[in-house]
């Protein structure tokens, strides 16, 4: 294996890692507030298509990214309306969102298939740093979205663990009646978290069509939204661990397309299963460990809250 192809692999690992991390962070924020959103794949698809089409329309990649974020948030709020406001079953609503999002993205993007991108978020070359051997090409010649993902991760961690609103948001996910009795708006907190989750999934989708493979094709998200959902569990709802998991799972995505070039005789299908197998392993570990202590999953995850109901 040549040095160049190994560097390529590592750079792709970081890039795919960031893609997964954005979506997983969003899902984590939503779940921390108690709302399971299985619509990540659909929100990603909507972000991907809206970002690509906005780039075609306006020619500005940053504006395109912003539109993708807003689209993701708007789609997520559909889920929010059903689950938070109306108290509908979260799994059903989330799955519908996935199907709806993928279908709608395909419909909206019909005319964009095969067209060259209107704008791309080109990799930035960090002065000095990008010339470091190994590290430079792997870490410092990435798309700006990668650095944004890192920043968002740090911000999410800070907000969740060090601020009043983060504490309130976690309380809404652990025990909504407690957050309510303490004077917080459970509906507001949960809707906000769901919208943030959708925005980040939208950004993740736009990263695909504005940077990784700057074009639109139906099914471009290729199940990565589901990996993001698994990643939240794998990372035990902690931003740092989710980041590690994102790199690991990103590595499997990067490796999949390169197995042949490396001449490794390993089935890419088995490799795609790896994130899910690892997640199941973590689930088992979590349930063994949480026999005598609370599980790391938010205790009120998936449970609708209505104040006057017992």
């Amino acid at each position: 294996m040549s040095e160049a192809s190994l560097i390529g692999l590592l750079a792709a690992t970081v890039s795919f890692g960031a893609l997964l991390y954005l979506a997983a962070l969003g899902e984590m924020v939503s779940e921390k507030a108690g709302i399971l959103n299985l619509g990540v794949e659909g929100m990603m698809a909507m972000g991907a298509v809206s970002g690509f089409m906005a780039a075609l329309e306006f020619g500005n990649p940053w504006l395109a990214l912003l539109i993708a974020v807003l689209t993701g948030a708007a789609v997520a709020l559909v889920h929010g309306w059903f689950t938070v406001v109306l108290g509908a079953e979260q799994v059903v609503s989330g799955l519908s969102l996935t199907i709806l999002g993928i279908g709608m993205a395909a419909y909206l993007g019909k005319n964009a298939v095969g067209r060259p991108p209107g704008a791309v978020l080109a990799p930035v070359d960090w002065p000095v740093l990008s010339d470091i051997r190994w590290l430079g090409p792997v870490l410092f010649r990435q798309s700006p979205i990668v650095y944004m993902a890192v920043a968002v991760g740090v911000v999410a961690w800070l907000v969740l663990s060090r601020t009043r609103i983060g504490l309130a948001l976690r309380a809404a996910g652990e025990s909504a009646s407690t957050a309510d009795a303490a004077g917080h708006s459970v509906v507001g907190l949960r809707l906000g978290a769901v919208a943030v989750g959708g925005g980040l999934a939208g950004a993740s989708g736009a990263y695909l069509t504005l940077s990784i493979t700057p074009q639109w094709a139906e099914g471009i998200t290729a199940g990565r939204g589901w990996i993001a959902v698994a990643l939240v569990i794998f990372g035990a709802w902690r931003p740092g661990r989710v980041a590690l998991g994102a790199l690991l799972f990103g590595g499997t995505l990067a490796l999949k397309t390169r197995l042949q070039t490396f001449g490794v005789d390993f089935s890419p299908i088995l490799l795609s299963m790896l994130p899910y197998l690892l997640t199941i392993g973590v689930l088992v570990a979590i349930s063994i460990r949480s026999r005598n202590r609370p599980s790391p999953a938010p205790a009120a995850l998936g449970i609708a809250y209505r104040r006057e109901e017992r």
Partner: protein
Amino acid sequence: MTGAGVLTTGPAVELLGIWKRFPGVVANAGAHLRVERGSIHAVLGENGAGKSTLMNVLAGVYRPDEGEVWVEGAAHRFRTPADALAAGIGMVHQEFRLVPSFTVAENVVLGAAGRLLRRQAIEDEVAALADRFGLATQPDRPVWQLSMGERQRVEILKALWRDARILILDEPTAVLTPAEADELGAVLRRMADAGRSVIFISHKLHEVTGFCDEATVLRRGETVAASLPVAETGAAELASLMVGASPVTTGRPPPHPPGEPLLEVTGLSAVGDRGLTAVDAVDLTVRAGEIVGIAGVAGNGQRELCQVITGLRPSTGGRVSLAGVDLTRASPRTRFRAGLGYIPEDRLGVGLAPRLSVVDNAMLRTYAEHRRGPLLVADRAAAHCAELVERFSVRTGSLDDPIAGLSGGNLQRLLVGRELSEHPRVVVAAQPTRGLDVQGVKFIQDLLIAERGAGVAVLLISEDLDELLTLADRLLVMHDGRIVGEFDPNTAARREIGEAMVGHVRASGDGPSRPDPAGEGP
């Protein structure tokens, strides 16, 4: 809106004509309440009288259908708990509002923290607050590790942290030992002396007479007596106000010699939810035609003991047998088939499936009898259910509606009926009359007495000492997972039983108190 310091006269709280209806129940029917400033005001009433509902109205959790809420001289229409908090009302709910995975300090500051949280700083502040009010606590411990008494102090700290001028405590002593309850009384008195008003919900009369100034009594959602001066009224009158005009009581069952031992438990141990020993080497025997009562302060292993006997919790040692058959490792189903009936404490949850229909719930234990091949025969199941409903006077709407719509008393009638109609040889009854109205209590108690007469062995776990003293042939006291004493309900003094309940066991002198379990039976 709030009488911002200007209106210093008038009561702290005034509730007028409060109505609150839930599907199928009227929880408050024109209730009223007036609480003076700087006083401790008791709200008394039986389970289901509407005390919690009324307090939730005052705390902004429930919106009343009708009625007025006045706080410190100003009318309010609370839309959310936040509104009530802003008006200076703090409530310690009957089911605690705490996040188990948060630390004590995080729970305390949850509703009112600075924008940024500095862990050490909030822990210090919470520790200082706790010191000031003499509430021992450990701000950095996660709440799930705390005992119920400690959790309650966290709840009180929450209200103090927000500087609530009006503090509502909903059945605060239900989870406390008598000593802890006395301590709480002292804390509340200090708060009242400092000018805060305290509303204290309870149905334990000696606490009300012990540290409350005035009492309001609720019955079936109505105020039947308002702001009685406790000192002049006395416990006896409060009690009769609570129960109403026609206290229907069940007489002591006639004595008769018990038969052979049916339920035998030896050296039984088990671990509780928090990973600590909850049942500690328990020995007990229940004979045919005998009711054995277990008394104790809630949380001393009674729940776990029931679960281990019925197979819902694994044991870590010891033996359970029914009529000589070892059931220690048997599944709940095998135990049921062997003749073990169970009336669980948690009716809607363990006993019944809330969203299933009345018919489905009625056949949960015996669905196998209503089948033809692999298919259920709906008619047979419905007939079985109709029979139960008839025999145990369950009042229901359609039998196909979800069972959650039934009132507490009717749920219990169906559950008890389901268990007893299968002719068990041993019945484990946990809090079988809790929360029922007087008629319901009598109905269930009479059923248990009838079972005893039919030669069934009944293990009765109850927090109601009066019930135990009336029904039980023998009374065991459980403390800290152990059986710490045995009493004869005919002769035992309540004081002695009370001492045993808090773990003060005296070597038997005058009474038949006998901590050694080896000496069971005649």
